[in-house]
């Protein structure tokens, strides 16, 4: 029971971040029919840009951040992340999409992913970094941990989950209620039709490519001080978002967010829960969900994924 609660709360926090990545993937897919393999790394770029402004490439202590400086750094990171997302769409995705070249955008976005990883890896050469924490979570409870129903839980987990949920609901509202959101949904339904009635399709999609990165980045940064970060951080988050989005077969963004939550809890459960003497353990945490989704899309694809057949 105790461990169950701990798994649930830490899983929801991690899952909230995955969920925003999943929602981003699914939105990009529904807008364009492509999968942005660079998504995780584009967000990683923003995270490390924030870290660079905040603390340089030197090792830092968690308490090293002052709020105004943090805000400035965050804005620099967000702007870079949005700009890189927009540039990826305009420079890599759109040209090949209009030519109907699948190999073009696949290889192009993968190239962007590896290029960003190379740049981050060359700048931040240590195997892992501590992300400075602007919020004084370590003062809450026992050095950042609070007891909930007998379980020791990181106070940050509540914050991360709440923030992710707010961002997800907020952007769902944005999609549902605003002019921008309605235009995006029109593009997702029928981009040619939207173009014909005068919706600036490329501009909107480019913006969306940037904004989904910003959303995911905010959640990732909120969670970042909880664990060590390195060049793989963004990539793996993007990968898990893709796994969650595929599990709901690129369904509506909120459903993808929910899948991300489930994935987070599932990972925590795989790592920690044992039934009697039987336990999977942390080694299985990352590989099992990927393997599951890999088989899932092979044996039970969505109708849309099949559609090239006729």
């Amino acid at each position, binding site marked *: 029971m105790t461990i169950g609660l701990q798994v649930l709360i830490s899983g929801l926090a991690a899952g909230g971040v995955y969920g925003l990545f999943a929602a981003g993937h699914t939105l990009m897919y529904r807008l364009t*029919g*492509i*999968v942005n*393999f660079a998504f995780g790394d584009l967000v990683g770029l923003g995270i490390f840009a924030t870290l660079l402004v905040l603390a340089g490439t030197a090792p830092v202590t968690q308490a090293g951040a002052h709020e105004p400086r943090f805000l400035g750094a965050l804005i620099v990171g967000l702007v870079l992340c949005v700009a890189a997302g927009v540039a990826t769409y305009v420079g*890599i995705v759109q040209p*090949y999409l209009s030519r109907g*070249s*699948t*190999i*073009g955008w*696949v*290889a*192009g976005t*993968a*190239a*962007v992913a*590896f*290029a960003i*990883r*190379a*740049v981050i*890896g*060359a700048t931040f*050469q240590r195997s892992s970094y501590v992300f400075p924490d602007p919020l004084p979570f370590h003062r809450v409870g026992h050095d950042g941990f609070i007891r909930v129903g007998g379980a020791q839980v990181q106070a940050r987990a509540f914050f991360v989950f709440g923030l992710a949920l707010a961002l997800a609901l907020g952007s769902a509202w944005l999609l549902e209620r605003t002019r921008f959101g309605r235009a995006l949904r029109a593009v997702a339904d029928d981009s040619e039709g939207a173009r014909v009635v005068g919706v600036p399709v490329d501009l909107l999609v480019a913006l969306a490519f940037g904004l989904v990165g910003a959303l995911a980045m905010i959640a990732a940064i909120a969670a970042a001080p909880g664990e060590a970060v390195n060049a793989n951080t963004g990539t793996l988050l993007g*990968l898990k978002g*893709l*796994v969650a989005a*595929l599990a709901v077969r690129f369904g509506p963004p909120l459903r993808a967010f929910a899948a991300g939550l489930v994935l987070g809890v599932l990972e925590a459960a795989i790592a920690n829960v044992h039934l009697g003497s039987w336990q999977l353990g*942390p*080694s*299985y*945490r*990352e*590989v099992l969900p*990927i*393997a599951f*989704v*890999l*088989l899932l*899309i*092979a*044996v039970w*694809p969505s109708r849309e*994924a*099949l*559609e*090239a*057949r*006729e």
Partner: protein
Amino acid sequence: MTAAALARTGTELRRAFAEARSGWSTGAWIAVAVVALAALVPFLSLPGVRTDALANTLYLAVAATGLGLTVGAAGLPSLGQGAFLAVGAFTSALLMAREGWPLEPAALAGGAAAIVAALLSGGVVRLRPAFVAVSTWLLAWLVWLFLLAFPSVSGGSQGLIVPEKNLLGLSATPTVHFEVALGLLVLSAVGIAAVRRGAPGLELSALRQAPPLATSLGVRLGRRRLGAFAASAFLAGLAGGLSVQLSAVADPSAYDPFFSFKLLVAVLLGGAAATLGPAVGIAALGLIGLVADPLARLLQLPLERFDTAVAAILLLFVLALGGAGIVPWLEPWIARLRRPEARARRARAGGLAVGPMGNDAALRAEGLRKAFGGVVALDGLSLELTRGETAALVGPNGSGKTTALRLLSGTERPDAGRVLLGERDLADEPTHERVRLGLARTLQTTVAFPELTALESVLVGRTVRRRHGGAIKAALATPQAREEQRTAEAAGVEALALVGLDGQAETPVPELTSSQRRLVALAGALASEPQVLLVDELAAGAGADELDRLAEIVERIRGSGVAILLVEHNLRLIRLVAGRVIVLDAGRAVAEGSLTEVAESDVVRSSYLGARRL
């Protein structure tokens, strides 16, 4: 018995030799010379050349050549070739280190393990090619994360130490590995080239250019693509299984997803369209590495990161320049070394057996029903075709004509009702099986295969009549496969002659007019030797002067005993050829009879012209 077999083998060998000699050219001499020279490299002890590094590069070239089959021929963007290589490497390394297996069976087991991985994840080949990229991307990460998470398998950060072994009876030194890798590269390149030129290559290419058209002609999409995917995984697994012994240690960090990406870069850099492109791409990457390393040292950048950036940037350049790759750029120069193509030899028409083959093969549909969501597209349609007759299926837009064709040809499954070809119930038969049994269909759209000639397009329709069209026979260019290719070409020319286009056999499809493309599609369906032919909108966009010619063609086909069902809007063509007209409205057959009878009927008048309201 034995003597006869020997004599036949002798004849075949002489014939094959003669064919090889007539196809031999300067280019072939150069290729042989290059391979021979390359084989000598380890014995020359050139300064600064390390045989083990060269052998390793050759193994990579084998894996890349395999990837060329997936990316170039099948058009599937795979981001996971390195994962298959890793699967092969670790299977082989574990078998050698823990079980004491010799190198050759261990490497083959590595190849087999890669095939298993390909088959498990390969269901995605049925989907849009984008999903192959997604699946292989996940696979690349899965394999890498697995190796990192399970040190018991991968040997952890030290890697897995592989003991010394023999290879082909010799101690497995870098030199032996080099020669084996070179041999493997030549074999796989020659085999893949033969496959790409043969029937499987044509089918893969058709599937890449227009999947719906290819499958409607009876090409088996899942099987062909999965075959290419698995074959390419096998080559990677085998190369991995061998190369891991060369490097003496299986190190998980060497097989990260970037490794897969680099193989894809090599394929695109060298040119996916050419069989040798990927190997050339690997060589180019190697040369770039030779230049980049000192540069990176000069700039004090960490080497392995630099490598990544160079590969990524290179790829962006290749893609920006149109994405053809090195070998296709060189193609004009290579072409000069070739003998003026034997292509000019015109196959003689003949050997096409259109029409009834003994059994009474009429088509019957009973109570076909299909609903899409809440919309009932077809509501209990029954119809019958007898051989040697032309019937027309007409009706307003949305009346269910195309749905009817799709149910008959097996692209959609009916909710209720059945389709019989002769006595045979087709309920469980997929499209390609129906085409094989003699039920062919042309599509409504003018989709064509833009990279093929008219004759090649027609040959795609020959798929279901091939008995020796498998990849292995094509790779070995067996006598049967070559004989069959000749008869297929003859039949293709005859099918083109039936529609009056035999003069255009070698014309590339993009140079044909749209009505000629329709006729090529019709000839493709004819090449499958149908007994029943379903034709969707043959006269769409045809001018008045063309109608008579179309009518003549339809009559000629009907005359050979084929039962024809035309789905048609053009009433003039119907009047010229159709003995019977079936009128569909809102998913039901509302009238049937000769054109005049049908035109008189009230139901038809109201559904075509609207109820009279004055």
